[in-house]
């Protein structure tokens, strides 16, 4: 498990231990990765983050069109593994969690401990400091630095 922000480590480790999730990705709504577990290739992380953020954005737009409140979570059930996407609020803004899990656990367990992780993140997050505006030329540098940190290189 790798995280860019050290305060994420504790809650995420607890979630992983309790949920038995196979893959986990925490990211901002713009697809910037905050923490990951279980991915072996940086390309997979980038792709999953982009797709996950896109799916959540589409789903939230769908909810808006329906006049409904935001969906809490989206679960795709597969034969061998399943996937949950959930957006949640943190003191650092709105994040998205992507969790892939197998039959050794259940969506109920994953959701239970994901919700607990969200509560813990809200408690341990440092008070937000003003972020400088992100410039395009800085973005790629930031992304590469993030990927290096997430893969321990």
């Amino acid at each position, binding site marked *: 498990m790798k995280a860019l922000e050290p305060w994420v480590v504790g809650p995420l480790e607890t979630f992983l231990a309790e949920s038995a999730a196979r893959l986990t990705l925490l990211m901002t709504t713009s697809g910037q990765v905050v923490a990951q577990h279980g991915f072996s290739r940086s390309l997979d992380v980038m792709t999953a983050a982009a797709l996950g953020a896109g799916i959540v954005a589409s789903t939230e737009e769908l909810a808006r069109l329906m006049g409904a409140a935001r969906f809490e979570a989206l679960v795709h059930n597969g034969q061998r593994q399943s996937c949950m996407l959930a957006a949640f609020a943190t003191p650092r803004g709105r994040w998205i969690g992507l969790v892939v899990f197998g039959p050794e656990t259940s969506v*109920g*367990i994953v*959701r239970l401990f994901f919700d607990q992780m969200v509560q813990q993140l809200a408690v341990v997050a440092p008070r937000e400091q003003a972020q400088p505006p992100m410039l395009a030329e800085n973005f790629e540098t930031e992304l590469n630095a993030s990927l290096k940190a997430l893969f321990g290189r």
Partner: protein
Amino acid sequence: MTTTQTVLDRVTRVPGVRGALVIAATDGLVVAEQLMDGVDGQAAAALTGSLVGRLVRTAEGAAMRPPAFIHLRGDGGSVLAALGPDDLVLVAVVGPDANLGLARLEMLDAASRLA
């Protein structure tokens, strides 16, 4: 009143029962619930579903048919589970003074009516 609500009504009337719920065991999700304040239905569904799945596999390992009734006893109360058809499980969270015998009988009877 639906069959499920009738089932939950019967179980929650037993003295000492703090809450009853019908869960989909494999997913660990609530199908229907009737809970007192302070009983976390989401947690009860997820945790009981997980335990039921493990214990069903344990019974299979011992060449036994799936259990009809499971009782997890703690210091401060118990979780009771009566397995119904189609992956449905009737769960009750009870206090230490609950009439366990009556709860068990009601749950075994009620679980067979779930559909």
